[in-house]
């Protein structure tokens, strides 16, 4: 009996189905166009979904607790700009010259964390809807990113090594892949093996249980916002390095891309369990879809339409699967 349910569980697990969809998409594109199924193209796909995956790791946790963060895109842009600014100009106001990369990186991560703190304060202390709070912060962040260098890009005067983490490889493996891999591993461990992940699930899934078990939801949500802020800042540093310039317009619409990736990955907006792996596959699906449709030379506007259909279809499928599982369990429960 137990074995049987385990097998069944594996087959109907949303993440597995998502993976099948991913495989099917790849097959489809591979058969449709000779330009798709290439190792170099897959390298691109991973490279292009790097930021979504890295930030998505944090957002998955946030959404597990029934929160969300719309400020990640502008946080990313602000970090990209501030990082570039610090390594090129330093802090002119304090008479500090160009900073070394690591120092600028640390400052940027702190700023990203502070944006997380701002989100968290609004959500937990002032009791904002996460949607509204992070929307406000999104505007502020975008404005500040643009204001950093009067709306212009920073593209000269970078020190040596600026572009290394975003472009170079070690033993043939791009640094970006290593970061993504680390992020996935670290957050999977956080999810499965640490208090933070477990408590995040508990809060999103059953507030009462969390309360009676003596958890402090506010503190956990605050931590998650800070982590997400730092991740967005880190993605900003990577973006700056990858683009080899500081671009204040980068990351426009990024927040919704991440949101969609996390949703596709099976983390519902209403909280509860999600999986990092799901988010990763969700991010890959989004990227593969864009990449493959481009390779097939499908008009961009059809791609937007497909995006909408797939989003709604996937969520409907998810909710049906969930309902099906639940009903099956209830039926099993009453029989027992």
């Amino acid at each position, binding site marked *: 009996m137990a074995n049987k349910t385990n097998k069944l569980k594996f*087959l*109907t697990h949303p993440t597995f*189905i998502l993976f*099948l*969809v991913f495989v*099917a*998409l790849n*097959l*489809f*594109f*591979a*058969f*449709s*166009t*000779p*330009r*798709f199924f*290439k190792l*170099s*193209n897959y*390298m*691109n796909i991973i*490279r*292009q979904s790097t*930021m979504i995956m890295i930030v998505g790791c944090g957002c998955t946790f946030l959404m597990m607790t029934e929160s969300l963060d719309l400020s990640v895109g502008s946080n990313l842009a602000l970090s990209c700009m501030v990082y570039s600014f610090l390594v090129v100009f330093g802090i002119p106001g304090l008479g500090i010259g160009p900073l070394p990369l690591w120092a600028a990186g640390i400052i940027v991560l702190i700023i990203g964390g502070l944006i997380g703190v701002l989100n968290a304060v609004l959500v937990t202390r002032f009791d904002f809807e996460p949607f509204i709070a992070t929307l406000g912060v999104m505007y502020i962040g975008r404005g500040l990113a*643009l204001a950093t260098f*009067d*709306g*212009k*890009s920073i*593209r*000269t005067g970078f020190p040596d090594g600026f572009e290394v983490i975003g472009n170079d490889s070690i033993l043939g493996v791009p640094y970006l892949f290593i970061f993504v891999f680390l992020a996935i591993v670290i957050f999977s461990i956080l999810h499965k093996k640490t208090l933070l992940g477990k408590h995040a699930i508990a809060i999103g899934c059953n507030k009462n249980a969390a309360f009676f078990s003596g958890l402090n939801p506010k503190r956990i949500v605050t931590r998650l916002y800070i982590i997400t802020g730092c991740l967005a800042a880190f993605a900003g540093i990577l*973006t700056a390095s*990858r*683009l*080899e*310039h500081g*671009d*204040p*317009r*980068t*990351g*426009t619409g990024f927040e919704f891309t991440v949101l969609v990736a996390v949703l596709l990955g099976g983390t519902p907006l209403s909280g509860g369990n999600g999986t990092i792996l799901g988010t990763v596959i969700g991010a890959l699906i989004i990227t593969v879809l864009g*990449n493959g449709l*481009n*390779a*097939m*030379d499908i008009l*961009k506007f059809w791609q937007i339409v497909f995006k909408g259909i797939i989003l709604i279809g996937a969520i409907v499928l998810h909710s049906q699967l969930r309902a*099906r599982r639940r009903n099956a369990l209830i039926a099993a429960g009453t029989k027992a």
Partner: protein
Amino acid sequence: MKKLLLTVLVLIIGLGSVFAAGEQEDATEYDHVIGKIPYTFEHAYHQSVCREITEYAAKMYNTKAVIIDGESSAEATLAAVENLISQGVDGIALHCGDAGLSAKAVDMAHAAGIPMVTTLIRPENMTAPHIQPQETPSSIYMGAEAARQWKAAHPNTPIKVAMLNFGGIEQVWDMRTGAFMEGVQSVDPGAELVTMLNGQGSTVKSMEIILDVLQSDPDVNLIFGANDEMALGALAACEQLGRGVMDNGVPLTEIIAGLDASSAALVKIFDPNCSFKLTHGAVKDIARAEVDTVMAMINGEIPMDEYTETRVLSPTFDFWNTTIAEGQRHLETNFFYEGDLEADVKAAMK
């Protein structure tokens, strides 16, 4: 459940093979495949460029052009470059808004042995052929002409300029807004730039902004939009306020200038009673120059890693110095225009 999954899988693979059959055909049909990355596919101008490139490459070189949108974003442009490189296209034409990113893209393409040509925004490293539409002189000319016309009609009114840009892209200043101002000041050194705001390339946004600008400074009499959409928005705002009119080419309220020389703009420009009077731009010549240069590199006629600048005129169209027939020809060759400009102007006047 399993049945459903199986059906979906079969369906997808089946569809895929159908597409694949079609695809194999056209792959053998063409001699080469080139990639084109427009700044954003959402603007009429860039869509026209892409269309011209596709048609011209097919006709002249039996070459297929693959379009991947740059989405006016650095990441999307970079991703498009990466994807085209891995798809193994024979050459790439890039129009990107950032000189730094252009340089990086050129390096990446060269590393993969793929020739690349850049357009409009000159890459910093200057190691690949470049197509340079002559926007700066045209913008200067346009500014000067607008100022002249205003001064001729209102010698005693100081010129006050308002501008709409895309928000902080420096090249737009060099080639469009700044150059326009330079032209204005060459005629009237006392001309004042009242404000420059971000119209986001959108007609509606520009309309709202110009309404506010004219409120705060009703004396504004020269408005420049860094593309035609924004100029049209400015015009709509003026019309809303009962302005935006001319007396058979004699400015009454203000003069509006745009950029791209699209059909929507020319219809206004040749309307003698409308205050939108100047624009410049070219599609065909730029698109063809891009294709020609890429193909020349593919065929080994010019080196791919040497900076050459192909200058393409950006002809100016204004009410006073161009004829409607010239406008008609321009639209036909550049914007796939099939109508009759004169008739359209008449229709729009009513």
